């Protein structure tokens, strides 16, 4: 990474994610949107390309990943470090204590929101059967589609059990999401961004997750309703959408 620090950001940088219409799931869409928001906030152009096998192309198996020059980097954390090595950073103006806070809140989003999204997608039987398994396996024909879908479900359920979420009910997960949103709402307060006037990677991450939850249709709209009860989070999402994404809004 350090060797390419001197190279400028190329015009043909690409971001890969699963097929948008048929395949991509809530958690992957949220992570991908977070990275896109971050890159737009840095002013770095990137083309979004959808591929059915994006997950397998990724070096870490996680979505999204970016292809820049001859480097391939996946997930928001490493991508932030990569852009920093190229001289683009949103959090340079923060002092040590603020940076500690920012990282802590990013972990809160990963720990609570992302895990809740994965839980709802794969551990809730109704959602898994109606939405997740069909969508995840849509590019493949039977029997590969069944095998891949169930394998993914089994992997995610193992992970949920390992971190202690296996025994939770859906209601408890919704409650956890509410608490997380309450914490984010209290931290945001009336400011435009989490660290006042300038957006940071935390704003990109929160936007990615909240906007995706608000705009994705699930088996029920409980999750979106929980977020809608925090008006400052809603206006935060709207503000970022209008500032950074208005050229692609329909």
């Amino acid at each position, binding site marked *: 990474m350090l060797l390419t620090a001197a190279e400028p950001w190329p015009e043909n940088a690409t971001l890969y994610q699963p097929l948008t219409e048929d395949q991509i799931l809530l958690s992957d869409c949220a992570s991908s949107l977070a990275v896109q928001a971050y890159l737009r906030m840095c002013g770095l152009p990137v083309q979004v390309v959808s591929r059915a096998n994006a997950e397998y192309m990724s070096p*870490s*198996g*996680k979505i999204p990943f970016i292809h820049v020059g001859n480097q391939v980097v996946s997930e928001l954390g490493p991508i932030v470090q990569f852009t920093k090595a190229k001289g683009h950073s949103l959090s340079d103006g923060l002092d*040590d*204590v603020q*940076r*500690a*806070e920012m*990282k*802590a*809140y990013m*972990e*809160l989003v*990963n*720990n*609570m929101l992302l895990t809740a999204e994965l839980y709802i997608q794969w551990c809730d039987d109704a959602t898994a059967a109606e939405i997740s398994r069909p969508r995840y396996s849509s590019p493949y024909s039977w029997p590969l589609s069944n095998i891949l879908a169930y394998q993914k479900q089994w992997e995610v359920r*193992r*992970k949920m059990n*390992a*971190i*202690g979420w296996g025994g939770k009910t859906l209601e408890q997960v919704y409650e956890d999401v509410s*608490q*997380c949103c*309450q*914490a*984010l709402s*209290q*931290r945001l*307060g009336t400011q435009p961004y989490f660290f006042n006037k300038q957006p940071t990677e935390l704003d990109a991450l929160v936007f990615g997750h909240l906007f995706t939850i608000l705009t994705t249709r699930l088996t029920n709209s409980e999750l979106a309703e929980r977020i809608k009860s925090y008006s400052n989070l809603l206006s935060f999402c709207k503000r970022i959408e209008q500032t950074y994404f208005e050229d692609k809004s329909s």
Partner: protein
Amino acid sequence: MAAAMELRCWGGDWGLPSVHTESLIVLVPLSHVCKNTAIASTAVPELLCGETAVQEPTHILNFLRKQRFNADYELTARQGADTMAYIALLEEKLRPALLHTFWVDAENYTNLTRPWFASRSPFPLNFLVPSHHANTALSRILLTKGEAPLHRISEVEGKIYSDAKECLNLLSYRLGTADYFFGNSPTSLDAFVFGFVAPLHKARLPSGPLQSHLRLLDNLTRFCDTVLSVYFSPSPPVQETVDANLQKLTQLVNKESNLIEKVLLPSFPLLCMSLLYLAGSVSY
């Protein structure tokens, strides 16, 4: 309100009241109310109050909050949100490396952790308990941090240790020169940080790169020592404690409830211990 509470947790060593992170987290608000019980299940720590049994540190702290023993009473909403965020940071960044240090690192496991837990477990559990914990720790690290093509622990070790060192640095920046994370009295965040950091600080680890890193962060080690000396120092004679607490309670009966809470919280553990001594149900 002052119903006798019994906390079942792993016992102490190395100058700590307990060597188990989750047990330490709940011991800070409940110091001295501890009965050493080695159980093979993962349901430790467990708080028994009357007929209710509560497990897991977050649930136990919520339970205490409902019983009006709330260390976070004076926090602002924003500080409450910060607490949640820092606890998430500890869970994501520090826990995997701690699990690795104590349960997966071969030298530490064979020389320190396994003998300790085996010696505290009754036969035949002493053969099963340590290896069960070690397997759980390894699978948790691999499932959360190991990426799909790299299912070997050696490839994630570097990443989890660098994450943990960064986490310790961030905690150190946040603590600064203060005694506690929020103001002058400890809150649940202090309990969590203490629970995670104290075993690392005090254990006599044969192989401890993370421990050496922690030793460089003076304010964190000082924080652990402060909590230890305030909450876990040897207790004063029982009779004096009972009289002192009864006096305090009668004086405060006519004052407002929040003042009662502020006094009851620090004296509750001593009161509870004295009640249990009198009832003859505590043995060390």
